[in-house]
C-alpha cells in the first residue's frame, strides 16, 4: 500500500525533501518511524520524534491504511 510522508523543520533540511510517497507493507505508525530511521540515519538520533497520522498526533500502535498521510516532526523546540 502507499502512504504519503511529510517532513518538518530540520528533518526536511537533513533529508532534503518536504514530502514523498512510499510503498510499504501493513505496519503501525511506530514501525514506519523505525523504517524511516533506517532509511534516513539523520532521523536516528532523536528519541522523541513526533508523528501525526492524517493531521492528528499519534504515538501509539495504530495501523496504517492505504493513502494515509504521515507527518514526521523533530522533537519540539518552541517557546
Amino acid at each position, binding site marked *: 500500500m502507499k502512504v504519503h510522508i511529510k517532513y*518538518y*523543520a*530540520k528533518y526536511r*533540511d537533513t533529508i532534503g525533501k518536504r514530502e514523498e510517497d512510499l510503498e510499504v507493507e501493513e505496519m503501525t505508525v511506530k514501525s514506519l518511524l523505525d523504517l524511516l530511521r533506517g532509511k534516513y540515519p539523520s532521523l536516528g538520533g532523536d528519541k522523541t520524534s*513526533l508523528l*501525526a497520522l492524517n*493531521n492528528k*498526533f499519534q504515538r501509539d500502535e495504530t495501523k496504517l491504511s492505504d493513502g494515509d498521510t504521515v*507527518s514526521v*516532526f*523533530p522533537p*519540539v*523546540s*518552541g*517557546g
Partner: protein
Amino acid sequence: MKGTIQTDPIDASAILRTRNLEIGSSVVFEGIVRKTESTKELAHLFYESDEKLAEEELNKILKEAHTKFNLIDAFAVHRVGVVEPGEVSLLVAVYSSHRREAFEACSYIVEAIKSGLPIWKKDHFADGSESWH
C-alpha cells in the same frame, strides 16, 4: 480560554484586558528572543509549525491546566515565522482566585508548551549561519 498560533506580533494589552471580579491573581509569562544564543549574535529566529496541529495542542494544554488548577481563565499565544530579538515569542496569561494556583498553572502551561507543542525553532545568526534547535 484561548490558545493562538500567529505570525503577527503579540499585543499583550489586548489579551490582558479580559477580567472578571473574582480574579484575585494573574501571572503572565513572556518568552522573549534574546540577542545572544549559544554565545553567538542572533539576527532573528524562525519558528516553523504545523499551525493547525499546534493550535489544537495548545488549546488542549490550556484546557488541562484549567481543570487541574481550577483556573478562572487562561490565554496563550505563540508566534511563528520570523521573530526578532527583543520580541515576545510566547505569552501565557493565567487568571485565578488564588496566587499559588496562578503561579503553578502558568509554569505548568509554559513547560507543556516547551515540551509538547509542535513548533520548531531555527537560529539565524548575524554571521549568516543557521541552526535548527
